[in-house]
Structures are given as C-alpha cells and as structure tokens.
C-alpha cells in the first residue's frame, strides 16, 4: 500500500504542468557564478540559467559612462507545489522570496543608498503563487564618469562609476519558512544596456592641478625610503625591525663560523 502511494506521488510529481516560463528561443544558456569573484560576464541579451532555493547567483556587465543597466529576471516556479494540502508541498519552497539586486563596481548594493536615489536598483520578484513564475526588473543609475564623481560635489554615498557592475538573484528562504528540500528553478534574464558609452578614465586626475606651493608638513612618504626605527610621529615598521635582526643574525652566524674555523685551526697549529 505504501509503495503504491509512493508511486502515485511520483506519478503526480511527473504530471505537474509544463514550466510556465517558455524558454525564449534566443535565450543563451549561461552559468552564473556563486560570488562576486566568479560572476559571469554578460553583454546585452537574453540568457537562461537556474537559481536554487537558498542560493544567490551572480553575473556582471561592463558599463561605460553614460550607460544605464536594466535587468529583468523571470523565475519559473511551476515545479514548486503551492497547495498546502497537496503531496510534495514544502512551505519553505512555497514561500521563497526572490530578490534581484544591482551592485556598483565597488560591490555595493546601490539600492542601499541612504538618500533613496537608487531604489530601483533592486527589485523583489512578484507573481501570483499559482501563476508558475515570478518576475521583476531592476534598473541601475546612469553611470557617471570618474571625473563627475571624484572631482565634483557628487553627493550620493554610492559609486556609480564605469567598470564591471554586478547583478545578483537571490532565492531566499527564511527562519520562519525554512526550505527543507532542494529545488533548482529555471531563470530567464534580460539584460539591457541603454545609452551611448562615453569615455572616462580614472587617470583624469593626472591633469588636475596640484598644490600651488610646497606643503611644509607631512612629507611624501610614498617616494622616500622606509624608516627602520620609530620617530616621534611615526612608529617603526615591525617587519623591517625583524628583517634587520635577521640580517644581523645571518652575518653574525657567518662571522662566528669563520671565526671558529680560524680559531680552531690556529689553535692546532700553535700546539
């Protein structure tokens, strides 16, 4: 009887409706990374990937000054049973929350900007529980040139500069509704890069004027030799002190060895 019920449950699982998210014919399969370090580089286009319950997937997009990143993520949730009375229901999976976030090249979550200027850079994916899919769109701010951020009164506490911007999709369960079984869900990602790229380089600072006159205090320590011993205003670098001790030990050992050869050898000659 138990086996028959099990077979029925398996048959029911197989009879689940086909994924509501019809994979676009043009969607290019990719495998996102599990961290900022391993984020997969994407260009504009439509991509297919997966996200597992409890997982965050990272991609990245190269942006130039003047461009805007817009990403739409659609997660196929049709394999998740949403009827609490049905076999295979897991409340953790049924209550997964999906977040799409855009990060600056500094890996900072842009929607966390304290003034709320970049709120659209994060999105919570929405969709009716029985619709079989959830979708959301995140839009980053227009990329500013290095010179616009670093040499002006730019007043936001994030850094929307040219470079590699990160996109993450997080399928989060929670302490209230922990996912007790695994699930890997198909994802479709639409990546748009709007606007014309403009040139901007961090080297712009080389052209900026320096001080009008020589600063009397705080010498430029970057160009001078390292100091081995502490002075009143700067502590000694302990590694340099250790290195000095090591060199003294090496030379001392060499001298001691040589001295031993000489003394012992001469001692014999005298006898």
């Amino acid at each position, binding site marked *: 009887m138990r086996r028959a019920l099990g077979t029925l449950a398996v048959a029911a699982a*197989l009879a689940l409706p086909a994924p509501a998210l019809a994979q676009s014919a043009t969607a290019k399969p990719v495998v996102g990374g599990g961290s900022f370090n391993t984020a997969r580089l994407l260009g504009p286009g439509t991509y297919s990937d997966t996200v597992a319950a409890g997982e965050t997937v990272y991609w990245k997009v190269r942006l130039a000054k003047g461009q805007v990143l817009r990403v739409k993520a659609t997660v196929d949730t049709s394999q998740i049973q949403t009827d609490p009375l049905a076999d295979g229901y897991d409340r953790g999976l049924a209550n997964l929350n999906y977040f799409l976030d855009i990060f600056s090249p500094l*890996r900072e979550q842009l929607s966390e900007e304290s003034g709320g200027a970049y709120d659209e850079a994060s999105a919570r994916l929405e969709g009716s529980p029985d619709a079989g899919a959830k979708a959301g769109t995140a839009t980053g701010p227009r990329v500013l040139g290095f010179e616009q951020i670093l040499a002006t009164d730019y007043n936001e506490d994030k850094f929307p500069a040219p470079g590699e911007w990160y996109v993450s999709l997080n399928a989060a369960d929670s302490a209230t509704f922990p996912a007790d079984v695994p699930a890997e869900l198909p994802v479709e990602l639409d990546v748009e890069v709007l606007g014309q790229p403009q040139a901007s380089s961090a080297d712009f600072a080389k052209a900026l*004027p320096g001080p009008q006159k020589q600063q009397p205090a705080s010498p430029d320590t970057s160009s001078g030799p390292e100091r081995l011993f502490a002075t009143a205003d700067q502590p000694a*670098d302990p590694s340099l002190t250790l290195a000095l001790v090591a060199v003294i030990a090496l030379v001392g050992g060499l001298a001691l060895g040589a001295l031993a050869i000489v003394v012992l050898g001469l001692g014999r*000659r005298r006898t």
Partner: protein
Amino acid sequence: MDGGGAKLRVLAALWAATCVAALVATPASAQSPPAGTPKILLAFDASGSMAADDGAGTPKIEAAQDAAVDLLGSLPPSTQVGLRVFGGTKPSRPIGPACRDSSLVLPIGPLDRAQAEQQIRSFKAKGRTPIAYALEHAAGDLGTSGPRTIILVSDGKDTCQPPSPCQVAQRIAKGGVEMRIQAIGFNVDQEARRELKCIAQAGGGVYTDADNAQTLKEQLRVLSTRALRQYVPKGKPVRGGPSARQATAIAPGRYLDGMLPDSERWYAVELRRGETLKASASWIPPRRDIADHAQLARGSLDIVTPSFVIPDRQNSSSGGYVFERRGFVSGFGAVSRPIGVGGQADADQPFSQPGRYYIKLALKDSSSKDLFNATGGQPYPVELAVEVLGRHGGTPGPTKGPQPKAPSGPTPAGVASPNEPPATALLILIGGGLAALGFAGGAALRRRRAS
C-alpha cells in the same frame, strides 16, 4: 676530537638544514578545505548497456570516461570531487550481487588528476543498473554537511527496483537544500528519461539529455559549475592590524581575512599624488542560517587619512547590516578622492596629503552577542578588494606598489598569512647553521691536522 663528537657536529648541521628545509616547505603544505566548500560526487553508469555504441562509433562507457576525464581536467585542483560507479564488476545474474554492484572508485577529496584518470579508465561496462543502491551510497559518500551535489549519468533505468530510485532521491533530498541530485540521460529512451527526470526533480536538481559525447561533456561542465557556485571566500590570506598604528601594509589586490565580532582590522596603502583609493569588503556567512541569528550585526568600511581622520565625505565610508538574508552576500565600498590634486589640493582638504592611508573594517555584534554566539566565537571570513585608480592605468595587482609586510599578531586559525614569510626565521636559522658549520669545519680541520 673523538668520532662521537664529529658525529654530533654532523647531526647538528643536519638538524639546522632540516629546520631550514621544514621552514621553506611549510607554506606549501596542504590545508583542509574551508567549511562550506562544495562537494561533488559523479555517479556513473557502468552497466552492460554502456558497452553499446554511442552513435559515433565509440562505446558509451568510453565516451563517459572521456567526459569525466575532461571534466576533472577543467576543475580547479582544490575541488572536492569523487566518483562512484554502479554496475561494472558483477554479471547480471545472480541478481543479488549484481544489484549491490557499486563502488567508490575515487573518494571525495582534492583532485589528483593522474590518479583520477587511471581510476576512471579502469572500470568496464558490465551487469545491471542499481541506481537507487548507488544513490544511497553516494549520499553517504558526501557526508551530512555543506553544499553537496550528486551528478548521476546513466543510459537507462534502474534494473534493480525496488526500491524506486525516485523515492530514494526524495528521501536523500529531505536532508535540506544543500544536497542536490542532478541527472544526465546519455542516449536514453523515453522510459529511462522519465525515471531520470523524476530522480532529478525529487533531488532538487535538473534533468538534462545528452545525445552524444560532446553534449555529455558540456553538460557535465555546466552542472559542475552550478554545483560549485557557492560563495566560497577567496583572496590572498592577510591579517589586518588591530589599530591604525599597527595596520598591515598591503598592495592593491584581493585579500581574505577573518574577523571576530566587535573587532576591527586595519590595513595601510601608500598613495601618491593624483591616485585614488578604492576598496570594497564583503563579510561571508559561514553558514546559511547566520542571517536568522544575526540580522542586527553591522559592518563598516572607512578610508582613514594619514592624519588618522575619517573624512566626512560621501562614499569614503560605508556601513550597514552584513547578513540580511539567507544565502545572500552583500558588499560595502569606499573610495577616496584623487590625492592632493584638484579640489583636494588645498592642505585643509582631507585627501590633500600623499602618504599612508588606512582602510578600517569593523564588525559590530548585537547587544546580545548573536553574531559571536552563532559561530561559537569563530572568525567570520571577510573579502577585501583594494584598487588604486590612476596607478599604472588603475589596474589592480598584488605585484604593483608596495609589497605586503609582515602583519602583527597571531594568525587566526584556518587563515594562513603569506604576509608572514619565513624569511626572518630562515635567515636566523641560516646564520645559526653557518655558525654550526663553521665550528664543525674548524674542528674537522683541527682533527685532520692532528692526525
């Protein structure tokens, strides 16, 4: 001098040489993988049907072996991967032994490619297809903690039922979201495809068809990459100092440190005029449920000037909650202004002076010490990325700029620091060794002259 004394001197010299060799060898010694490192177990079909042609003139077993060797060749050497085969050694009858024919030919551990290839090539196609039996053992091979993936490759359905492999997969998956079963059907018929799909779905993974050897190779790579996409902290191990005056000097690059709650880490970066310091930090939860316990924990990242001032400047400091959601890693970033030029050329500006700037990381626990209690006082990994814009085109690289110096304080458990080279102790030992050799040589000379 007697012979015993000479022997002692030789032994002393050998001892010194051994110590030197040991010190030199220490950094290369193997380390156990960090907690949370993903593990992959390949479960390969070696039943009699795998002897059939794959459609391109190659037996399927050989195509599968080629795909496995290709995969292992593409994985980083540190990957924790193993291989179990089912079928392969027992004839189809008697049924009992044939349905228990599964062996772990490559135990889970870091890759030894030569040994792995030898093991992979060693199995033949023979006997039945005990998928359920192999899955149960595969789950045992992977242990009970951390992200674990079984990648099942088969060309047919289980020929040893009951138990149903689908039900076994369901039972295995009840261990939580960190255990998944992926399935690849290699030239399968409809019935086998249906069963393998059921296994993958019950195991929280996906099913993929592989109609030929090339697709099998590609799918193995895709599934392995997905299995490995956990947030594994990466970077050159470093230990920041406890204060500005004990900051660890670092060059641009990516670093990995460990921090206890309610502690600070300080790093120093030398900046020249016109350069801009850019830093980002991410604290990595060692377990996925950390967010449940420590939602009030906060992290901060500040750039501090040579005058030990934290400028009140937009985006030269950042901070916020570090573990907001399960499975999510956020980041914090800070950037200085171009040092000593443009608007920062005036001496009263915070970024006016070239010199030693500091990066300060702080991890604040809640008042009830939730963060500390969640790990029992173990450090939290933190990734630090440092870049200097305007230096050689702004490209970060650990070889550019000032070289890292020896950090102060002990190295936390599990985080080796390459910034503590054995050079100092090595030189002292070499010095001692030279002295010992000198004495030994002198004594030998004396003895020879005496004779």
